[in-house]
């Protein structure tokens, strides 16, 4: 009897085990390994790059980034004009575009989109929250001039406006679908994009299919399947066993394995990302600029970038990532790794060996390998005589601790930002008026009047050359003041099967799949 039982078990095991080798994705269907389940497919309700990777294929905005750049080009808006004072933007909309649900895209729809986000009295404002609505906080009024002309009136000149329209927060959703689904729109999305929403099986997949009527050319792929696989190892295992066609955010150490394997192609693309340490300037040792600079000298950024991150990032020189090519100050050299100079600065500043509390997160958007990096930094600082104690927090708790400001809690904290415009990061994190008490993210309390002036001016300037000049000045001052330890600029990576064609990563970190083919 026992033998029979074992035989039966063995037979079952064999029968369920055998056909896995046939795990190949069908042609014209692209399976993408995501790092998490999307929060929502309502582009106005989300903030995570992971969700953007789906959204930018479902929706279009009035503008979009030109392939391979962070420069804006027309999308649903065919053209636009900006008034002399920089306060009125008039967009001419593309004709004959329909949403996936069949309703028409027009000026009223655009107005509906922005009113929903910005007007608390809008009947569908309660379908939020809209965490990034402040991207458009300068918008005073949106008017549908005629069915294909829409006018935005701003309270003040706001240079990043066009760029923000290209961000997912500016993607245009179908008003009809919002009216139909209300709060559940996030699970029943409808846009104008190259792919139509098919199904969202919680924790398993989001499926989108080709939009046969796409205004910018029907995409070659029949369907894209997004699979949330939070565990990087599992993602790798799936990629290796052929269950995925595309995998993003490959752990640095596994990248080599894929490079060496002809069955895969590896892609890398630098983007507007900066990884840094916020230093608490309000109290403790880091109130002293010399000690902040010492920390910048003490951390061996090359070792972190080359070894820990295996070359998937570059050393950051200042607050602005080089991906904003036009605004980046090329003359800025990163703080060199110079422990002796750090020690000298510490001695000069009279650092008394006070223990520093260092907030480290376990993961999180753009944080790369935060524990390992934090540990390496801690060891570097200890090496020059700074006593550092790490406290680790899970990402949401971490944000809950860091965003309200470090005062009374910690001396330093890890942080990373990915932004779409050189204005966003410094404006939110380096201005005197961006202290947490005033609703900003300046958790380390950096305050420099000159920087404030430069940022305000750059925001109002409509001339890009002028803005570039201002930002470059700002970078120099900030680097010298060292409110942060500037650590790394990430290069996003992805691996695809060798049969995936026309795949490219964008500096925006968006995953544009409109032209990808997989015969």
């Amino acid at each position, binding site marked *: 009897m026992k033998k029979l039982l074992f035989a039966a078990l063995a037979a079952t095991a064999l029968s369920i*085990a055998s056909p896995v*080798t046939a795990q190949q994705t069908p042609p014209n269907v692209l399976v993408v390994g995501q790092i998490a389940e999307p929060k929502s497919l309502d582009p106005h309700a989300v903030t995570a790059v992971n969700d953007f990777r789906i959204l930018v294929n479902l929706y279009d905005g009035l503008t979009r980034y030109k392939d391979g750049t962070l420069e804006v080009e027309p999308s649903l808006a065919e053209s636009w004009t900006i008034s002399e004072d920089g306060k009125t933007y008039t967009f001419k909309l593309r004709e004959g575009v329909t949403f996936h649900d069949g309703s028409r895209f027009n000026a009223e729809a655009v107005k509906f989109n922005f009113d929903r986000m910005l007007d608390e009295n809008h009947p569908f404002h309660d379908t939020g929250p809209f965490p990034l609505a402040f991207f458009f906080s300068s918008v005073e009024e949106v008017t549908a001039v005629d069915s294909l002309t829409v006018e935005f009136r701003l309270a003040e000149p706001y240079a990043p406006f066009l760029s923000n329209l290209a961000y997912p927060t500016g993607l245009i959703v179908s008003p009809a679908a919002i009216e139909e689904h209300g709060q559940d729109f996030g699970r029943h999305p409808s846009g104008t994009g190259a792919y139509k929403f098919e199904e969202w099986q919680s924790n398993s997949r989001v499926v989108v299919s080709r939009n046969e009527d796409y205004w910018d050319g029907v995409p070659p792929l029949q369907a894209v399947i997004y699979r949330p*696989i939070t565990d990087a190892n*599992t993602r790798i*295992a799936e990629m290796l*066993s052929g*269950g995925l066609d595309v995998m993003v955010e490959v752990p640095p150490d596994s990248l080599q394995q894929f490079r060496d394997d002809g069955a895969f192609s590896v892609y890398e693309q630098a983007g507007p990302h900066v990884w840094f340490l916020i230093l608490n300037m309000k109290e403790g040792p880091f109130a002293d600029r010399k000690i902040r600079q010492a920390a910048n000298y003490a951390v061996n950024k090359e070792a972190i970038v080359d070894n820990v991150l295996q070359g998937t990032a570059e050393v950051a020189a200042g607050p602005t990532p080089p991906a904003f090519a036009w605004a980046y100050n090329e003359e800025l050299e990163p703080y060199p790794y110079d422990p002796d100079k750090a020690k000298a600065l510490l001695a000069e500043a009279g650092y008394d060996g006070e223990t520093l509390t260092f907030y480290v997160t376990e993961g999180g*958007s753009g944080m790369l390998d935060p524990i390992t990096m934090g540990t390496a930094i801690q060891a570097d600082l200890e090496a020059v005589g700074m006593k550092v104690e790490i406290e680790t927090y899970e990402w*949401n708790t971490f944000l809950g601790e860091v*965003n309200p400001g470090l005062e009374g809690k910690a001396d330093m904290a890890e942080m990373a930002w990915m932004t779409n415009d050189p204005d966003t990061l410094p404006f939110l994190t380096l201005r005197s008026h961006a202290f947490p008490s005033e609703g900003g993210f300046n958790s380390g309390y950096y305050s420099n009047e000159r920087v404030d002036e430069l940022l305000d001016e750059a925001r109002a300037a409509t001339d890009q050359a002028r803005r570039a000049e201002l930002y470059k000045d700002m970078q120099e001052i900030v680097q010298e003041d060292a409110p942060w330890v500037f650590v790394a600029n990430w290069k996003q990576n992805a691996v695809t099967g060798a049969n995936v064609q026309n795949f490219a990563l964008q500096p925006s970190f968006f995953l544009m799949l409109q032209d990808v083919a997989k015969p």
Partner: protein
Amino acid sequence: MSTYIAKRLLAAIPVLFGLSIIVFLIMAMIPGDPATAILGSYATPENVEKLNRDLGLDKPLPQQYLIWLGNLLQGDFGRSFTLNRPVLDEVLERFSATLILAGTSLVLCTVFGLLAGIVSAVRQFGWTDRIVTFFVLIGISIPSFFLGLLLILLFAVRFKLFPASGMYAIYGGGDLPDLLRHLFLPAVALAVIATGVIARLTRTAMLEVLRQDYIRTARAKGLSERKVIYMHALKAAMVSVVPVIGLQAGFVLGGAVYIETVFQWPGIGAMLVKAISTRDLLLVQGGVLFVAAAYVFVNLIADVVQSILDPRLKS
């Protein structure tokens, strides 16, 4: 019997009720709030406060609890803050996935635990006993998450025998063989510890029973050794093994947290870990209630089976 079951079910209500209060209190004590989780990197204190107000989280705790309880009594588990969907929808989906995984594991560990325990007791000190004991020891000593990783490394990546993660193949799947294929590795990883525990206990219980006078009586009657062991001894041993199987249900449900994380099984354990980290109070409440109810239910079954086995317990 039915009054007994009814009484036990009634007794479960205060347990679940108390549990829901505990969950509420713990969640209230955890620093941070769902608003931060919803707003992500862009959560300023100001936005957080506003959102908390919108979500009704600024109300005093007892009031929040009563609102929740009132809704629950009408069958409404509320809406998850972070997933933006009804708690019940999410929990039912997740819970059924966990039931499949944990149920399979429970069956596996019961069958193999009993078999191993019996064989090991019957062949005490023989080679079979030694081998079984050895594997049982490995089983109860190996961290299940480590075992899970090793299984993936070996059977999914190296030999490509089983899929590495998920519950169904993405296309062409969805049928039973597909589910079984995905189920195999996580169910095994989850069952290992419980199998060890049950095997050890069965072995001890069997050995203890085999020393009893009534076993000697059975032998004195001239019954075959097979009958002595598989009828007389096993039945008596089951009386002490059955409640432990019930307890293992708790461990299997708990262990599912690791296994679901490692194998990307879309179950309730992984959901709860995430819900705790995002402070999604109502989702945690709903999830914990379901898990606790399952635990209570399995133990009820164990007790009922026990009292059917042992008529002495009825009086």
